[in-house]
């Protein structure tokens, strides 16, 4: 390892794929098409148990949001939590890179996925989080 090597990176969650073209993935039921960000023992919709990994669209629109001003200790506020419709798959994420107020965040607004470092651990590995910014 040379001193010029870029720091190692890990995704905040395992359904975030890093690299040149960051995107989210889901476990899609091969029988009914239901998508899950976490692992499931069987499909909650049709009870079959075969899944394949699929990429989620990186562009979407805001279907619901809130501006959280009061959270558990240690969680920085305010932040905008939202439900994003990404081509028919709903994604939970924060809205970022815009002022956090109802004048700048509106229902139906177009947004796109973005990633950013959230910190490094004691080995120097960076964790990369994601959010959606106005498109």
């Amino acid at each position, binding site marked *: 390892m040379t001193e010029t090597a870029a720091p190692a990176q890990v995704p905040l969650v395992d359904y975030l794929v890093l690299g040149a073209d960051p995107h989210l993935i889901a476990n899609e039921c091969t029988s009914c098409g*239901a998508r899950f960000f976490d692992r499931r023992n069987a499909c909650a919709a049709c009870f079959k148990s075969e899944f394949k990994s699929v990429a989620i669209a990186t562009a979407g629109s805001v279907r619901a949001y809130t501006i959280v001003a*009061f959270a558990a200790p240690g969680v920085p506020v305010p932040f905008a939590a939202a439900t994003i419709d990404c081509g028919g798959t709903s994604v939970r994420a924060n809205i970022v890179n815009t002022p956090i107020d109802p004048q700048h965040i509106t229902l139906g607004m177009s947004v796109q996925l973005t990633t950013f470092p959230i910190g490094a651990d004691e080995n120097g590995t960076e964790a990369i989080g994601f959010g959606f910014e106005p498109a």
Partner: protein
Amino acid sequence: MAENVWILGITMTKFGKHADKDLVDLASLAAMGALSDAGVTMGEMGIMAAGNLLGSPGIGQAIQKQVGQTGIPVYNVSNACATGATALRTVVMAIKAGECDMGIAVGVEKLSGAGLLAGGSSKGDGKVWEPKGRYGAVAPTDGRVGTDTMPGTFAQIGMEYGHKYGGADFELFARISEKNHGHSVLNPLAAYSKRFTLEEIMGDMMIAYPNTRPMCSANCDGAAAAVLVSESKLRTLSLEQQRRAVKVAASVLTTDPFEEACQILPDVNTLTRNAAKQAYEAAGVGPEDLDLVELHDCFATAELVHYDNLMLCEVGGAVDFFNSGAPFRDGKMPVNVSGGLQSKGHPISATGIANVWEVCHHLRGEAGDRQIEGAKVGLAHVIGLGSACGVHVLEKSSL
């Protein structure tokens, strides 16, 4: 054909701060109150169902040690904010199954000083990133990937409705809260019997836009209990007991069926609509027959969507329904005349019995200053995230 089940006695403690009573004292107060209201004793109970979320396990047995140990089965139940309704329904099912002809349901919680009904995790980041849990998260996701807080979750549920149908803005949600706080002035058992102006509500501390502090359910202590009886047993009791008894015309519990977005934002709509449909069918009534409704307004944003889910209005018509004045106590479909969870308070496991008590109080004609005149049929609704929904339809006695 299973027997009809009736509420013979029911009570709620004052909601608020009960510093001088522990959890078991508070539950016992409600249990003994319900038995006394019913005119029966623990010796006649064939089953007990007891709900509590935040205390030690075995609340039912702890209550029995204070009010009477007779060896009957206890079902300790836990179903988030639907816990009280689940306890009630457990006793209803036992009586319908013919296992006994009388039973008692109790729900209790001590929440004073618990802060806002927040939820969420404050666990710190680890020293070395290590994937944990079902999402392989290397750090806490609350606040980084949306919110785990209840006010934020229910805020989005209300905003989603507004996005779909229009007309729901911060001021509309605040006016719903203004209505419930206004109603609570007539309820001596409410935690907060205080009217707020619209300006006060909108200007108060923002918790999760558009929910300010008075638009969130009030954490408090409280208990509620009900004694239930089979119809054939009721007919052997006094005429006064028969006259005050309230018929459980429907007792329904549902969970959330799979919907596309439910993994990231709980769907409180489908299971409520399903429960309401089943309840109306079982009771043989429609929403137009209801004289009052107590619904789960854990946040002002939640009340709006449940007008629609309980079919009190046309699909998509909740904003117009509110603006018509219908859900005010002098409107055509009074909703939350108790003050609702925002004002009466929300001691979680007590809520699903206390809202039934409120409806019974009116059906019996005993609601005093806040009586809805001539009330004959009412509905009580609760929802707990996860999710579980309880709906009870109650009818005035014609015995």
